[in-house]
């Protein structure tokens, strides 16, 4: 029964492949010129003594562990103790481009317009999780890595390993050929990590590339900041200034920077041919640091340059109320360019702003960009001119951006296959895994269950796709061809939304975030002012929307401090046909995730009619009727009233609700989910059922006191995903912190009944007479949990190494049964991360379980009374005598977390009331012994169970009193036939 599940196979077959895990410094970041990072002082790997197969690799500040399996490597990495020195004081602050911008000179002051654009060091962590493998020998290096910038990676690998660049073979694990990217991603970082480890241990090493590498994305920040300034006179640009903040527009792999073999950069201002602008202004100042690196990626520089210049011109045009096309034509002298841009504009039927009104949540916009780049011999006349016009559709709610039309004119002296270019761009810029606009699943998206967890989970190695059946990409174009591609989308996005994006990428999450902020968006710490744009009815529509958002925020602020809330006018119950079946179905899932029915239904009563009693230190509370009955339920609640209750804990009539209703968690729910939940609840049958009066002690019966409580303890901010974490983690965090309100039971509360955070988050608590065990590092489970075990427990109600869900957790599991597998997996993943648990049960855990079961086989001496009670009442089902029986408990008592707890409560509850599987049929049931055992007998039995099955723990004290206390409010009678 206790068999570890099969391990996923390594997609790349290499004899003797070993597995590496790298350990980054606690602090490291790119300051624009160099890596500022903690210095490694000492490595203590004594915990690994005796593990011959495990090697710790140290190279300056680069540290990694190599082991025969990935699990062993991960475990070893946890046990190595690294001591780091603080990073050198950040003198870089004075070098930041913003500071420079404000200090700069009179030149900037004379400019009527100034703007800064940025380019990230890593556009994303990668396209999909996968293995990155390196094999090194004396003279050559072979690397399987999904890179978008193979030439840059080759240079990094050569510098890091000392291997001649000619002798480095790069292989693409997907078999599709390397994607031409617009910038680097963490495939390069993983490749250098693998190469350094492989070289050190002399064997092939595989490194797992997944969303964990997003930490590198954050640490490396921006590769380039571009400041543009202009002076205009009568809508004519008289002075144009362009300045690059950094010598290099790209950042080498983290592993290379950490091991300190990166070639030093020389500085010096130089005008550069590849910063060529096709436009003619009266004065043009172009300056850039000239960096001398072994490899200077001019392609990336020109893409960044074109993005900044074309976005800036677009901003100038909008600021001056000039057509962006006309502004460009005004400053173009090149005849071929003028002809091209004119022909593209007429072909695309150019007109901005797009006047079509938004349909539903979808806003439309159109953008233009133009570039002329010198040819390979730095000759401009022979270079490529290209003019782009793009139409986009932006979904305001989801943040999804769709490139609906693209017209590209390219003048390279040869026939240009526009259709093919467009197809390439569709595949490269828009298709899911590879694109600039690559869409990642949103944290509040409800899976329809068609995709399995394995397909979407970030930790499961997916086999490399075979090119057959996959849309084959046309042969690659030079990166320069894509130079206007980023700007054209940024300009179209501005036309659609009125929000200026000054730093790629434009992923759905960032677009949504930017729309929510209603500001120009050039990064997480964006402070730039909102882009201005003139005319168009659509714009004023958009602005109204912003205004509404601002008002909500102000109202939200007011709600927190003002004790007497107004009632929201009652409405007639919304018609059942008001909401679509899809919305109601989504609402059903939201209700299941929030487990509304568990608290709003009394045992044996109609669903959601309330009346369930909650014993709190402040008195007894009763849940209310949330069926759409107009008199006793929520039938006359408008959505506004419902949302206020869910986010701020205020009833429709203005009374404050008590936080036993976990609005503190529900506030994190997204708007879309709350609307769906409202639709679902309103579509349910109305049942009249008045709620019992609460019996709270003074002063807790004064609801108005909740106003200062909320001001102190309630944060009504909706959930914001952490971009450094995987989608799976963010989905799990959204469900667990919000709707799932796990912490409502599993986090201890302070004297005022507010959940504690920080280290006390998930530290366990007593709720409703039961103990909700800790879900963080304090977990007392005799065998440590794994993510898979948590998943089994939440999905099926039981886990072989931990037992069954019982007590108040049983209805939770029953509610989760409604959710798609991916969502339950996400919650398990999130909780496992809080515990620091591994993904799978490891052989050691099974061995430990077997050992615990074996060591409890004998009855302890001196507990004969307890032994007799156990033999009579429990042993028939709870002792494994080697003979199969259907009613035998599937999990040994020696693995029962409750017996290891500091408190006997759950054990006493289980003995008194039994375990009932009506919530999750088949998970196992046990009769209650409340009527057949006296308090003394229950106490004796509990003491015996503790001594026999948790011998490492101290005996429980004052058991009999505890039994008597717990027996009172929970007078569960055993079922009799």
């Amino acid at each position, binding site marked *: 029964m206790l068999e570890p599940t099969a391990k996923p196979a390594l997609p790349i077959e290499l004899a003797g492949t070993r597995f590496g895990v790298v350990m980054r410094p606690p602090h490291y970041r790119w300051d624009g010129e160099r890596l500022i990072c903690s210095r490694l002082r000492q490595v203590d790997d004594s915990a690994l003594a005796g593990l011959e197969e495990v090697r710790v690799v140290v190279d300056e500040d680069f540290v990694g562990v190599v082991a025969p399996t990935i699990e062993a490597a991960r475990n070893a990495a946890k046990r190595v103790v690294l001591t780091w020195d603080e990073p050198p004081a950040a003198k870089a602050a004075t070098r930041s481009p913003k500071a420079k911008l404000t200090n700069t000179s009179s030149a900037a002051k004379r400019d009527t317009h100034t703007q800064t654009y940025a380019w990230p060091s890593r556009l994303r962590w990668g396209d999909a999780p996968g293995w990155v493998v390196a094999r090194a020998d004396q003279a050559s290096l072979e690397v399987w890595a999904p890179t978008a910038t193979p030439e840059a990676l080759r240079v990094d690998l050569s510098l890091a390993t000392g291997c001649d660049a000619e002798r480095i073979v790069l292989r693409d694990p997907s078999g599709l050929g390397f994607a031409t990217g617009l910038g680097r991603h963490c495939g390069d970082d993983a490749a250098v990590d693998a190469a350094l480890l492989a070289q050190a241990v002399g064997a092939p090493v595989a490194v797992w590339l997944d969303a964990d590498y997003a930490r590198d994305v954050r640490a490396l920040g921006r590769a380039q900041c571009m400041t543009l300034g202009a002076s205009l006179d009568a809508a004519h640009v008289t002075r144009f200034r362009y300045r690059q903040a950094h010598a290099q527009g790209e950042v080498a792999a983290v592993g290379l920077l950490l091991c300190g073999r990166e070639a030093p950069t020389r500085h010096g201002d130089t005008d550069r041919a590849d910063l060529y602008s096709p436009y003619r202004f009266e004065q043009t100042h172009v300056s850039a640091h000239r960096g001398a690196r072994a490899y200077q990626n001019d392609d990336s520089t020109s893409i960044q340059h074109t993005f900044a210049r074309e976005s800036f011109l677009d901003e100038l045009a909008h600021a001056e109320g000039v057509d962006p096309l006309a502004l460009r034509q005004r400053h173009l002298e090149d005849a071929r360019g003028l002809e091209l841009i004119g022909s593209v504009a007429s072909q695309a039927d150019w007109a901005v702003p797009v006047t079509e009104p938004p349909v539903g949540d979808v806003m439309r916009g159109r953008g233009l960009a133009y570039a002329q780049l010198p040819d390979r011999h730095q000759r401009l006349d022979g270079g490529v001119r290209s003019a782009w016009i793009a139409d986009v559709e932006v979904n305001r709610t989801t943040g999804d951006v769709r490139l609906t039309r693209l017209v590209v004119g390219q003048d390279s002296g040869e026939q240009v296959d526009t259709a093919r270019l467009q197809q390439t761009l569709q595949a490269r810029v828009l298709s899911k895994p590879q694109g600039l606009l690559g869409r990642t699943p949103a944290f509040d998206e409800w899976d329809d269950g068609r995709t399995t967890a394995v397909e979407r989970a970030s930790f499961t190695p997916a086999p490399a796709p075979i090119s057959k059946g996959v849309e084959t990409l046309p042969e690659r174009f030079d990166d320069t061809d894509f130079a206007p591609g980023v700007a054209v989308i940024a300009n179209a996005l501005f036309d659609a939304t009125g929000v200026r994006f000054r730093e790629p990428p434009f992923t759905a999450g960032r677009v949504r975030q930017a729309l929510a902020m209603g500001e120009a968006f050039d990064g997480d710490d964006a402070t730039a002012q909102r882009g201005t744009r003139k005319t168009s009815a659509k714009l004023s529509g958009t602005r109204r929307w912003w205004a509404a958002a601002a008002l909500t925020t102000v109202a939200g602020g007011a709600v927190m401090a003002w004790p007497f809330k107004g009632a929201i006018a009652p409405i007639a119950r919304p018609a059942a046909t008001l909401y679509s079946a899809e919305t109601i179905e989504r609402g059903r899932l939201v209700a299941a995730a929030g487990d509304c029915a568990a608290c709003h239904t009394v045992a044996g009563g109609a669903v959601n009619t309330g009346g369930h009693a909650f014993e709190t230190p402040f008195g007894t509370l009763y849940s209310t009727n949330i069926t759409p009955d107009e008199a006793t339920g929520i039938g006359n609640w408008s959505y506004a009233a419902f949302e206020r209750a869910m986010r701020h804990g205020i009833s429709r009539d203005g009374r404050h609700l008590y936080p036993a209703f976990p609005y503190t968690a529900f506030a994190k729910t997204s708007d879309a989910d709350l609307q769906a939940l409202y639709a679902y609840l309103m579509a349910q049958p109305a049942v009249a059922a008045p709620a019992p009066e609460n019996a709270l002690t003074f002063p807790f019966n004064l609801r108005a006191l909740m106003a200062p409580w909320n001001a102190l303890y309630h944060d009504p901010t909706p959930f914001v995903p952490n971009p450094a974490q995987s989608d799976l983690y963010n989905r799990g965090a959204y469900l667990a912190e919000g709707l799932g309100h796990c912490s409502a039971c599993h986090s201890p509360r302070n004297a005022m009944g507010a959940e504690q955070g920080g280290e006390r988050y998930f530290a366990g608590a007593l709720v409703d007479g039961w103990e909700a065990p800790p879900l963080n590092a304090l977990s007392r489970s005799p065998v440590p949990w794994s993510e898979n075990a948590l998943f089994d427990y939440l999905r099926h109600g039981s886990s072989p190494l931990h037992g069954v869900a019982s007590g108040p957790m049983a209805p939770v599991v029953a509610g989760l049964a409604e959710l798609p597998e991916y969502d339950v997996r996400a919650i398990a993943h999130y909780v496992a991360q809080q515990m620091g648990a591994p993904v799978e049960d490891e052989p050691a855990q099974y061995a430990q379980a077997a050992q615990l079961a074996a060591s409890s086989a004998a009855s302890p001496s001196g507990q004969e009374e307890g032994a007799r009670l156990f033999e*009579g*009442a429990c*042993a*028939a*089902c709870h002792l494994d*005598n*080697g*003979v*199969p*029986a*259907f*009613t035998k408990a599937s999990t040994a008592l020696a693995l029962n977390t409750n017996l290891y707890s500091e408190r006997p409560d759950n054990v006493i509850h289980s003995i008194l009331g039994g375990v*009932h*599987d*009506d919530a999750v*049929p*088949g998970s196992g*049931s*046990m*009769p209650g*012994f409340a009527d*057949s055992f006296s308090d003394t007998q229950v106490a004796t039995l509990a003491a015996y169970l503790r001594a026999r099955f948790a011998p490492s723990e101290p005996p429980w004290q004052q058991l009999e009193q505890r039994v008597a206390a717990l027996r009172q409010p929970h007078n569960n009678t*055993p*079922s*009799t*036939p």
Partner: protein
Amino acid sequence: MTLTLRVNGHDHTLAVPADTPLLAVLRNDLALNGPKYGCGLGECGACSVLVDGVVARACVLTAAAVQGREVTTLDGLAVEGRLDPVQQAFIDAQAAQCGYCLNGMIMSVRSLLNHVATPSAAQIRAALEHNLCRCGTHVEILSAAHLAIELDAQQCKQLQGGAHA
């Protein structure tokens, strides 16, 4: 709630609450009185039935928990009027005093023989350890179990021989 249970080879559709104990359904709704109500807490074994051929205590199982499974009671052990070898062995060995526990003893031995053709004396004791008998007929019950091994083996042989013939 409507449940469909398969008992002794027949399907029964019942309108009972899902948490009704299986023993109550068997005795009250289906009038199968082989399984006895003893302690009601899974302690004595008098209520034992077979679920998918494995012994189970019907008083602590809900009816919903055995949906889709094959339930066999003492009443259904005999095939075409011919007693099960375990039943025959208990008659031959005169193993009954008051007989209240015998349902559980027989079902437990049947379950054991379903999994181990020739169990050791220790295995028989383990299988019957938590079946209570208050008349003190343990010695006869044990010899009935040993006899059951022989009778069961004989019947197996006959059935195989019959199949060949």
